[in-house]
């Protein structure tokens, strides 16, 4: 092998080992591995961004059929976003801050969409954040989405401030679940709970997943009366509003994906330590299977969300219930795990 390749390998290896502080076990040329893995992560991010509006469309459809109302097709949300992006923007100079906030929110969702496992655990060598990191990203992005509403003043500001405070306080409410994950990164956390039975020693993690699911599900979003109010009062037009809608969908899908991953980690494919040809094809098969399972899981989540929309509770009360339930479920889950591993 010529020295340049060896040099290149050592540089790549040093880079990845430095980034992730762990050994990169692979037998294939490292650049192939690097390009392949990066491509896979970007594909996953793109997959979440593409499917999030479809999922919201599905939820709207289900919700409408449960209520007995006529419904739009599943792709209606995507069409709406597309339409907003190509609508002439009635942009006021004073709304530059709003535009900045919305795009920051979108950019903050991207790492979350990259690192939350959809079909497989992230392969070794890539830096993987922990649960606190991902949740802070999602909470931060949500706050940035609500801020344009809160800066309008008058009654809208009060309502939006309640939402802002409630969404911000979700981070402290999730603290017991962070302790449950033990500060480990997502890969080692999922590896640890991979083989646990959901009925006995893994029950605590199912409960924790339920708590995170509550964060994603207990929301007033598009389609309900409250959020119609939100989207009509939103001081955004054109592409800003398009990105706002897309980001809010992505945030919901990220929360729910994280929740179902923690509830049922076995549905994810586990990357092998030393890839060989046979093992590789097996892993790809598992990945395809996991994507199918993910679609099923998100379908169930959509049904759940559509059911939640039938409940008539004011948004403030919804926020109170959400924070209380998340914290309570988290404490219970932590307690159950504590009895198993004191």
């Amino acid at each position, binding site marked *: 092998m010529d020295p340049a390749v060896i040099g290149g390998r050592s540089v790549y290896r040093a880079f990845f080992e430095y*980034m992730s*502080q762990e050994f990169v076990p692979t037998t294939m040329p490292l650049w192939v591995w690097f390009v392949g893995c990066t491509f896979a992560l970007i594909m996953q991010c793109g997959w979440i961004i593409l499917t999030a509006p479809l999922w919201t469309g599905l939820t709207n459809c289900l919700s409408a059929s449960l209520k007995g109302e006529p419904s739009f097709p599943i792709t209606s949300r995507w069409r709406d976003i597309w339409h907003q*992006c190509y609508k*002439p*923007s*009635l*942009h*006021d*100079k004073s709304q530059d*801050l709003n535009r900045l906030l919305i*795009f*920051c929110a979108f*950019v*903050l969702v*991207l*790492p979350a969409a990259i690192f939350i496992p959809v079909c497989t655990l992230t392969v070794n060598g890539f*830096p993987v954040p*922990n649960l*606190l*990191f991902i949740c*802070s*990203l999602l909470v*931060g992005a949500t706050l940035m989405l609500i*801020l344009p509403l809160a*800066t309008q*003043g008058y009654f809208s*500001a*009060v309502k939006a*401030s*309640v939402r*802002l*405070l409630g969404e*911000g*306080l979700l*981070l*402290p409410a999730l*603290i*017991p679940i*962070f*302790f449950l994950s033990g*500060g*480990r990164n997502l890969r080692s956390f999922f590896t640890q709970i991979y083989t646990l039975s959901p009925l006995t020693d893994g029950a605590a993690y199912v409960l924790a997943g339920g708590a995170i699911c509550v964060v994603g599900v207990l929301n007033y979003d598009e389609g309900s009366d409250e959020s119609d109010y939100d989207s009509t009062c939103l001081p955004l*037009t*054109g*592409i800003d509003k398009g990105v706002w809608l897309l980001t809010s969908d992505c945030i919901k899908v990220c929360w729910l994906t994280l929740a179902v991953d923690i509830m049922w980690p076995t549905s994810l494919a586990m990357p092998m330590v030393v890839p060989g040809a046979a093992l590789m094809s097996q892993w790809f098969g598992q990945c395809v299977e996991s994507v199918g399972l993910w679609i099923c899981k998100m379908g169930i989540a959509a049904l759940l969300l559509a059911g939640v929309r039938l409940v008539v509770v004011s948004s*403030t009360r919804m926020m*109170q*219930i959400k924070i*209380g*339930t998340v*914290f*309570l479920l988290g*404490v*219970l889950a*932590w*307690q*159950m795990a*504590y*009895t198993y591993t*004191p």
Partner: protein
Amino acid sequence: MVFVGLGGLSAFTGVNIACVLPILRKPFNIQCDLLRSGLWGIVALLSFLGALFQCQGGLTWLPIFGADGLTWSMLLVLAIAGGGICSHREALACVFLGLGFLMSSPLLFGLLAGTALSLLPGKGWKALCLPFAVLPACIPVDSLLSVFLLCLTIVQTGWAILDQRGTTSVVPVCIGIFLLSRILVEYGYLPLTIQITLLMCCGCVAVGGCFWAFYAQDIEEILCGVVMAWYGCVVSDLLLSLVSTLEGADIFGIAFRLGLGPCFLGLLVLLAVAQWQSSGAYILFKRFFVALGMFQGSVLPSSGGFLMIWSNLEAIGASMTKVKPALAFILLLLATFQCIVITCMTFGLLRVILALLYQNKQETPVKEERFYDRQISFWGCIGGSILFLFLPQIWLFITRPIIAGSMPISPFSWDKNLFVITLPYRETYLIPIVFCLLVGGGFWGVMRLVSLFLWDNRQEESLRIMPLWKQAAPFVEIREKKHDICLDASGVLPMSVALDFLLGGCLGGRRFIILGLSHGDRLFIRYCRYSLVILRTMRSIIFRSGLWCDRQGVAWILLLLGVGLFIGLFSST
């Protein structure tokens, strides 16, 4: 070593002269300010060098001076704050405190710090009360009163922050941290009940700060509330690292030092910028400073606030091993409380940043005053906060004498781990620079893509400006109204009302504000003076809590269910 010591002393003398002598000020006002800022800059530089090279005992050849490592890092913070101070009285307080740090005798330190504390409010009964905060420095550690006086120190230094405006808020913070870190080291270990009492005092300070950040109407008052909340949070870390026997005591020390680093420097920038009214070319600078200060104090990943939450959680996670379940649960509640405080700090900062942005829209001519001489401290803070965020090991190295623990990596050995925060006995680590670069690159990429595919052909159409509610109406040009938003933050982000809504109205909405929280400690005095008011308030609280319980039926059922399950789980093991 001698150079640093002598340089520090001479710079101090210079600052003193520049503050005190009015002859210098009258004819050459600008030059005097510049001189003072420059001297503070020199003090900051020298203390940085002193901390970096561990100049311990550099001044021992003078009988009353004795500088150890802790002194230099505290002087560094004080000098950065001193550059942004306007009035002579405040500057004098800073100088006194700086000299106090250099003293070897605790009595002399107490004298100088007490003088500084009484100088801060200037007059009134508060100036009489505040010097009592330094009493623990003057009595022996084994005295019966010492724990009580420590509580008094925590509460009084927290209380002293509220009166300050601008960077002067740093003076009580420095006094509190310096005093507590010196005295608590002498204790070594305190019983659990005393630990909890001290922690409750910290909690009171933090909660007071959060309320202040939500209810205050003025930008500087909100910022004081934020600093007070931060102080409560950081002091609780200091306590746990020095007097507890928990497994994670070392990590609490790191959490304390990280809290004192990027997050505090970011807050310092905001404190300085809030006092500075500007227009024209400097607005961009101001926005940059404000945005960075906001980021450093927020919960967004990799910022200073996030580092605080992360390290606190790691410390408490490490402490939870090998303790009784009840204690583990208390630790869990403590972690939640600290996280709530930092989240509330973020909301306080949001109020500040929005108020500052609205303030810029005012069209009244603003005097372009004192920009040049304060730039040194602005850039110092900004540069410091960015440097210490991206190279956290340097900050940990500088502040290592505060709490003895694991030895950080020396910045002189150029190691890749300088970028990484690692914690003792834990597998976890954090590399802030990687995430910041990732998000920065992502932002650039997204904006580039959007401008390529979506914005360019829409530029001209977006020129038609009109408010949102008139979108469907025929286009009528109306002269734009001037923004009549006043300097304060009363109309911006009504978090107080939101908190009241979220707690089910138990705070009593506007009445709570009128009663006096927005007017400082008047609430306390009034309650003490009129016992009838106390009785009436107690009764109203009982009625209101009864009503609240009545209204929260669902929540109570959930809570009781949870408590039942929780107790069941405890008893089953």
